């Protein structure tokens, strides 16, 4: 419940920020990119957060006793979000993935599928290629933080399996992501 609320807050804040700043390409202002309210309020330099960031309050024995559907529902892993037509990891995406990396290193038997998703704009074929890039960008970053690459697989869904189907920036931001799914423990 706690995680759900946090996730919801995060989502709505992302949406609000996204709406306020608009799509990157349409409004080339100096406003910072839309990003969720991460705890760090550091200046905009690309300092990778410490690998131990955001410790999760879970009890090890409890975590692995859950079935896989429950583990995914519990929200142990956080998705990484992207800017329009980009596969570079934003600061908030790095923060989310750093926390994911810390958790995955704690449970090294867990296997994860990283799904690359895109918003509805642009052609289907191009978005499949872009989703592939996003999923692999997330995977590479996790591996760089010490996660065993053999436990990570990627798949691109392009714009074929959206999380949200309205034609608005808040919805599009939800769909531009690398979505982490636990597939084995």
């Amino acid at each position, binding site marked *: 419940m706690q995680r759900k609320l946090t996730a919801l807050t995060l989502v709505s804040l992302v949406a609000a920020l996204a709406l306020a700043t608009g799509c990157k390409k349409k409004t080339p202002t100096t406003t910072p990119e839309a990003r969720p309210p991460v705890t760090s309020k550091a200046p905009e330099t690309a300092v990778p957060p410490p690998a131990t960031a955001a410790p999760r309050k879970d009890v090890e024995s409890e975590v692995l006793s859950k079935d896989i559907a429950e583990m995914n529902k519990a929200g142990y892993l956080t998705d990484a979000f992207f800017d329009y037509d980009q596969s570079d990891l934003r600061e908030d995406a790095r923060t989310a993935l750093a926390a994911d990396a810390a958790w995955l290193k704690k449970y090294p038997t867990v296997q994860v599928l990283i799904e690359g998703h895109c918003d509805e704009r642009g052609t289907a074929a191009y978005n*499949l290629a872009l989703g592939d890039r996003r999923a692999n960008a997330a995977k590479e970053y996790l591996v760089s933080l010490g996660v065993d690459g053999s436990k990570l697989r990627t798949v691109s869904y392009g714009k074929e399996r959206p999380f949200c189907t309205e034609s608005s920036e808040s919805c599009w931001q939800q769909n531009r992501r690398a979505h982490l799914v636990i597939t084995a423990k």
Partner: protein
Amino acid sequence: MFRPFVFIAALFCLLAAPAFGQQPVPTPAPGQDIQLTIKSGVARRLTVAVPALDAPGTAALQAQVTDPFTATLRSDLEYAGAFVVAEPALYPQGYRDPSTQDAADRWLGTGAEVLVDSRGSVSGDKVSIEGRVWDLKSRKLIFGRRYSGGASYVERIAHTFANDLVKYFTGKPGNFLSTILYVTEHPGSIKEIEAMDFDGRNTRTLTSHKSIAINPSGAAGRIAYTSYVRLYPQIWTMGLDGADKREVPTGVDLNASPSLSPDGREIAFAGSASGNADIYTVGVAGGTAKRLTTSRALEASPAWSPTGRQILYTSDLTGTPQIYVMDAEGTNSRRVTFAGNWNDEGSWSPDGSRIAFACRNEGDFNICVMDFQTGQTVQITSEGSNGHPTWSPDGEKIVYSSRRSGSTQIYTSDANGQNKRQLTKGGNHYQPSWIP
């Protein structure tokens, strides 16, 4: 809804037709003095009189054979672009042999230059139809052929006759027995591949993977597509009726936008190794895929030229997706589109002289058609967001998807954008691919 037996039976009928069904009617050969051939690009349309099929029989026969045959033939000829059907209310009763001046004058009085006469006979569930085409000025029979088949396929017989007329007068293959493949969306992001006739009728379901099946394309009697049925996207092929589905292992990821070579032996597709999409080719049975592009840019949407010598594809090498062309071996690549900030989903016309593609500058995507030699480009849509154009077998029409009414539907138009028709309704349908 899909009834494989009926469809296979229809196919058999179609395949058998050239061998058994069509026989030249034993009538005079076309005279050398008749010059009715319509050249491509000539705006003038030939006015034809198409009286109802002359077939003796009951009212039931009228509804099952005569009416559908006549309606299909008239509708096909109107759609073809080369003909105008003279107003049927003006047709004289009888006078189906216009070899006399009196009979010919009665038909000429309707505005027609040509009479398309058809006579049928039905025995059991078999129908035999004889088509006779007369040039009214010279009063000469210029084309004659007999067609036969099951009575329930009378519309296919009409399509076959219409194809023959288009071929006779324009020299190009008709579209009337062609198929449009497309993707239909179901709840839960399930996407299946379906097919319909050129006019949107006779829809049938080709996949029921209950997964994501997308990007169908066809050549040489096979269809290639991408399916997520095994969780990871793979290329599959199947027959035109959806039977004989086969996986095509490639050894790489992504396996998007497969395009069958014109001879059906190879598949070009967007593949990926570690997050960098490139164009690959693989034999139709699968194996080790050959990488054709090597840039760090993202490449997708390959399409073979009609000769199989070149491949169109999209690359974001310069920062925006643009269309490029290369030899089928991956050599001699060059950029083709320069206007706008997104050009994608290129498709070659059957004669190789033009390409159609999804084009965008600001706002929505439209459909553009470019003369491949001169680069001269015309935008043929102006409303909604449009995509995935491909060409009809005769190169006169383009099919594309468009979201102009809240949902995505499939449309056809002439290659210049005129004579727009909506083929699908309800739900969402997209990624159309027109195959002979």
